[in-house]
């Protein structure tokens, strides 16, 4: 590598491994500068809002990961067609309202958060599994769209000429279209194609949802990365690497990428809540996934019962609000922490 030393320390520590410092005496370690990532992390640690948000998110992730354990402990089921689940006729009265638990009966440990009227699933089980779906969808969409955005952004920024022009055209084109329109177009097609097979339909809807979120989720980052690369590629260390004949791939991923950690981390942390909101919103409209529990679908199921069964509505609404709020606030804190202009 032909980087100057300061640059190298910065890059190595960004990657979490710092061999240049290991064999040096203690004193040298102390005067060695902090990398931007380290500064950002220490700022984040002092940020009270961020700490609270991380705690909430960790809690929600734990609930989602432990969903099978939680449902087994309480003996509740989100899927009424589960052979072990109680018959809907056992838990629902003739008017569709639950026979046990809220809103009209006293609290019962069999269904701690009540039973859904008309549909008969257990609210607690549906909620934790819905949370699970939300998190799976948003993590999958974020990871893949980040990779695509980074790779295309690097390619567009570094290659002069038609590759850049094609990628930029596609970026601008997709940026102009809302994913809602794409989902509106795709959803009836998938439903009609797989309407005969419930298992296939369920897989198809979740894959198509994640795919659409990815297709419409990478452009912002790609654009950002491209802009950064455009300025970085004129810097001495890149020019030097080019001169001594370092392969392009290595320049892109070993020289440029470590300098782009901040925008990538920021885009990930701001992307997650967006995907959560998108998934729940699409399911609320009936465009999202079918066959899996989803918080958005629970909201649309519960909306008609606002008057006498407020708990049923507030559960999914609260879960969506809590998840997006904490993810968004954390994202803002991460952005502030990485921004060299903000001083605390």
């Amino acid at each position: 590598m032909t980087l100057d030393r300061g640059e190298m320390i910065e890059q190595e520590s960004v990657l979490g491994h710092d061999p240049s410092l290991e064999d040096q005496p203690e004193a040298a370690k102390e005067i060695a500068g902090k990398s931007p990532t380290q500064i950002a992390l220490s700022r984040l640690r002092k940020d009270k809002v961020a700490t609270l948000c991380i705690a909430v998110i960790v809690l929600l992730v734990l609930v989602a990961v432990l969903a099978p354990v939680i449902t087994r402990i309480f003996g509740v089921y989100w899927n009424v067609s589960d052979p072990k689940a109680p018959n809907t006729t056992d838990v629902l009265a003739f008017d569709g309202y639950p026979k046990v638990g809220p809103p009209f009966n006293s609290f019962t440990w069999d269904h701690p958060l009540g039973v859904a009227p008309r549909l008969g699933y257990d609210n607690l089980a549906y909620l934790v599994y819905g949370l699970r779906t939300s998190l799976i969808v948003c993590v999958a969409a974020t990871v893949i769209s980040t990779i695509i955005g980074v790779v295309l952004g690097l390619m567009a920024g570094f290659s002069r000429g038609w590759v850049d022009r094609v990628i930029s055209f596609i970026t601008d084109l997709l940026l102009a279209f809302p994913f809602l329109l794409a989902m509106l177009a795709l959803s009836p097609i998938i439903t009609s194609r797989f309407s005969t097979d419930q298992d296939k339909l369920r897989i198809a809807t979740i894959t198509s949802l994640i795919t659409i979120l990815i297709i419409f989720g990478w452009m912002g980052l790609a654009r950002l990365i491209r802009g950064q690369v455009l300025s970085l590629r004129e810097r001495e260390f890149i020019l030097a690497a080019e001169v001594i004949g370092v392969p392009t791939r290595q320049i892109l991923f070993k020289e440029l990428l470590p300098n782009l950690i901040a925008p990538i981390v920021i885009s990930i942390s701001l992307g997650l809540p967006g995907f959560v909101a998108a998934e729940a919103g699409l399911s609320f409209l009936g465009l999202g996934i079918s066959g899996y529990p989803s918080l958005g679908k629970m909201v649309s199921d519960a909306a008609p019962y606002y008057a006498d069964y407020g708990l049923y509505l507030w559960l999914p609404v609260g879960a969506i609000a809590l998840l997006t709020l904490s993810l968004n606030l954390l994202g803002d804190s991460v952005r502030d922490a990485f921004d060299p202009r903000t001083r605390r």
Partner: protein
Amino acid sequence: MLGYIVRRLMSAFLVVVLTSMFVFLLFFKGPSNPAEPLCNLNGKCTPEKLAILTEQLGYNDSVVHQYGIYVGGFFHDRTISFGPKYHCDAPCLGISFRTRNEVTSELVEKFPATLSIAVGGASIYLTLGVLLGTLAARRRGTLLDRSLVTFSVTVSAVPYYVIALMVWIYVSLQWKLIEDTSYHPITSDPLHWATGLALPWAVIGLTSSTAYARYSRGQMIETLGEDYVRTAVAKGVSERGVVIRHALRAAIVPIITIFGLDFAFLLTGTIFTEVIFQIDGVGKWAIQALRSPVDFPVVSATVLFGAVIIVLANLIVDLLYAVIDPRVRLA
């Protein structure tokens, strides 16, 4: 400038053509048989009935031939037959499977509601956002500024539809503060038009203004620090004059750009507003068409329409931007 306009028009046209091909392929080749929902609509669908409908709708012809007929319908009248024959005036987007009306005329009927929601909501959030942002920038660092920023961060962190749904349920249904949320044509009764849409407007305005408030606050802080603003203050221009005449005029250009791009999203985003507030617009129409059996002509028409609106809005913003901002030079 002229060259730029021609090039921009051409690329917009290209995008529209590509979108129409995409929509066509998706809706006419995507489903296992696009005639099936129609067949299921009236009683039992027998294989013979399905075969007749498929033949009548022309789904046995080649893709290019079908696309030709589909595009031809935009320019001249068409006759579409499934069961009885239907006459479809140009521009023809098909006949609704469910209502058996021309899709175009239904679209024309539903569009004013959507446009009203979008225009009303947008004017509220733009004014409110710029106003609050300017106020916060002038009183930077005070309690007002900080509470405004906190409020805006919190509101924009929660998805729009969650807020809209809760407002609809509590304000309109539970507490009955504003009971009537529906669309009445502005031509017949302007007052009723405004009162019927007041609640959706307020919700769109309040939730979307936060982003604009934050954005214009940032822009204003930046321009208020410019040298020419200091010059204006030094030569004794009143504070109001400096803020409005000097700073705001410079700060508003990027805001207008973002607004133009947003407006197209707002038009499609009214889907949530219409579904939640039960307003008969294009969005609710599209969502209703999705109910089984799917009304394919309606869905494909709304998707194509939405795409064209977005392309047009982008085109207008790009052209306007060149006019508004003298720094944008187009060779």
